[in-house]
């Protein structure tokens, strides 16, 4: 491919362009908000860590057009491995930094419970992302580019999760009696009404009976060498190498050999081809490197702050600062300490529903685990907002920001797809970030199970989407001519 000319209008120096000034305005807004929070109480630095890492994630996501939905979707839809390669680069880097953070004793990571729920949830999630045009963090950065469809996706993810985790009545018929019996046998506070609400029963009667552990733990190994060998190399780096080889063989090799004119390639040529694949999209590769390193550093900084304040959870700091509303019955709030997307969005939806008079604190998800803090005190929630603002800064400074109104068609896809993403994310205990990216990089193999489910769902999603496009084009051939 040749790029004969790349003409970008440069009549005004970028510093004085309206969009650059707007980008600086957004940046100053974040700086002022941060200073205001610190003026209130310096312990808000804990929340601000989420804000600023979110901002950096948003900048890099927009810079690299880094969306995990496109990693699987574009592979099947248009046979482009660019994003899948970028994700693998990020996984490898995150795994290395996570190993250093773990060995330094600052890891905030907890493994996910391994079970069939991951495959089922991930498949529903993977199906949904084909229709929304982005994964959970992809939708956040696209919202920062002015895409209102993506804002609808975020709303749908928020409210569908909030409904799923608190719904009762006919929903309870979805779970088997054995789960209800198992849930009832757990010694839990009466106010949680643990045998009512299908998600409570699913959590207490099924999930709590499962085990989640890192590869080193499963093999009964401990110590620095074991963490590096089993968690970092075997669980993250080796699968990454194998997946990169598969992507090269199935999606890149043929075109590369044709372009380079190598009829009978030697191993050296194949390795050069793999390198060409990894570097073919410079922005994506750089974003992958940056995101991988930052995601690991994020764990380190939050872990160090927890040690500094001698807390396990932001809820304890909130109590110490005099904010006691919206905490769980354990005085905790959602505070993963690393990159995560979906749970805080469920809290936004749940908080709005609570303000509308719906009692949802009798659920395990909100009442026991994550709480329902005011969005102004929701630390991971600010990470999501940080991603939107970071992406807006980058998009504005590159003159790529544009308000994009949804059509009826795209709005329908955003709401239905976003709802499926919300349902899938809750069943699988996270999205492609919390249940895949953060897990495999920390030695928890459950993330690869999530990836398998997501790939299956996305594959079916692409088939259905392609069928829909052909059907809809056939109806309007005279208008579009395509």
């Amino acid at each position, binding site marked *: *491919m*040749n*790029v*004969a*000319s*790349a*003409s*970008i*209008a440069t009549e005004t120096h970028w510093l004085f362009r309206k969009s650059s000034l707007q980008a600086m305005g957004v940046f100053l807004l974040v700086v002022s908000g941060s200073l205001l929070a610190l003026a209130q109480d310096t312990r808000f630095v804990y929340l601000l860590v989420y804000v600023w890492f979110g901002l950096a994630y948003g900048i890099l996501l*927009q810079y690299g*057009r880094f*969306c995990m*939905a*496109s990693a699987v*979707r*574009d592979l099947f*839809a*248009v*046979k*482009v*491995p*660019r*994003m899948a390669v970028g994700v693998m680069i990020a996984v490898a880097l995150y795994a290395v930094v996570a190993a250093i953070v773990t060995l330094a004793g600052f890891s905030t990571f907890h493994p996910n419970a391994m079970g069939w729920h991951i495959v089922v949830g991930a498949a529903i999630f993977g199906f949904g992302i*084909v229709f929304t*045009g*982005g994964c959970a963090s*992809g939708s956040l950065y*696209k919202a920062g*580019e*002015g*895409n209102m*469809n*993506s804002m609808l996706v975020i709303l749908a993810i928020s409210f569908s999760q909030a409904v799923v985790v608190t719904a009762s009545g006919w929903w309870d018929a979805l779970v088997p009696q054995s789960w209800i019996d198992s849930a009832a046998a757990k010694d839990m506070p009466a106010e949680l009404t643990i045998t009512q609400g299908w998600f409570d029963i699913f959590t207490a009667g099924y999930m709590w009976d499962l085990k989640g552990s890192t590869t080193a733990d499963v093999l009964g190994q401990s110590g620095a060498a074991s963490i590096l060998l089993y968690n970092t190399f075997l669980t993250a780096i080796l699968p990454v190498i194998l997946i990169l080889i598969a992507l090269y063989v199935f999606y*890149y090799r043929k*075109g590369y050999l*044709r*372009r380079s004119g190598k009829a009978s390639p030697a191993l050296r040529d194949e390795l050069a081809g793999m390198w060409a694949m990894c570097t*073919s*999209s410079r*922005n*994506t590769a750089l974003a992958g490197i940056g995101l991988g390193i930052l995601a690991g550093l994020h764990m380190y900084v939050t872990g160090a702050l927890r040690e500094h304040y001698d807390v396990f959870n932001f809820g304890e700091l909130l109590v110490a600062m005099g904010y006691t509303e919206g905490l769980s019955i354990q005085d905790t709030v959602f505070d993963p300490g690393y990159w995560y997307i979906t749970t805080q969005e469920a809290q936004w939806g749940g908080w709005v529903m609570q303000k509308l008079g719906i009692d949802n604190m009798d659920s395990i998800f909100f009442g026991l685990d994550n709480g329902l803090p005011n969005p102004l005190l929701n630390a991971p929630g600010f990470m999501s907002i940080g991603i939107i603002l970071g992406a807006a800064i980058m*998009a504005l400074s590159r*003159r*790529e*920001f*544009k308000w*994009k*109104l949804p*059509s009826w068609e*795209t709005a329908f896809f955003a709401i239905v797809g976003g709802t499926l993403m919300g349902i899938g994310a809750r069943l699988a205990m996270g999205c492609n970030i919390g249940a895949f990216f953060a897990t495999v990089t920390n030695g928890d193999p459950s993330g690869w199970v999530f990836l398998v489910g997501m790939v299956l769902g996305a594959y079916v999603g*692409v088939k259905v*989407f*392609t069928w829909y*496009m052909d059907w809809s*084009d056939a109806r*309007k051939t005279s*208008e*579009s*001519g*395509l």
Partner: protein
Amino acid sequence: MAMSFNKIADGEWELNVCGYACPHPQMYTKKALQKLESGDVLSLVFDNPSSGESIMAMCEAEGNDLIDRQEGSGSFTWKIRKA
């Protein structure tokens, strides 16, 4: 906002997918390029930045030339010559 695909001159086509996010722009581009003859030029107008990276990779894989790029104010107009 509806997609439009029109012949604008002999061997020249225009595909406008403004208003669409992923995966519409890249999938419509793939379909449009399949309709073109070798040597034809496609003017592609889109406003979803992410699609650009995938479309560029598609062109590279299939040997199509990206012969011109006009960008600004959130919209992109690319000219692609089919191999």
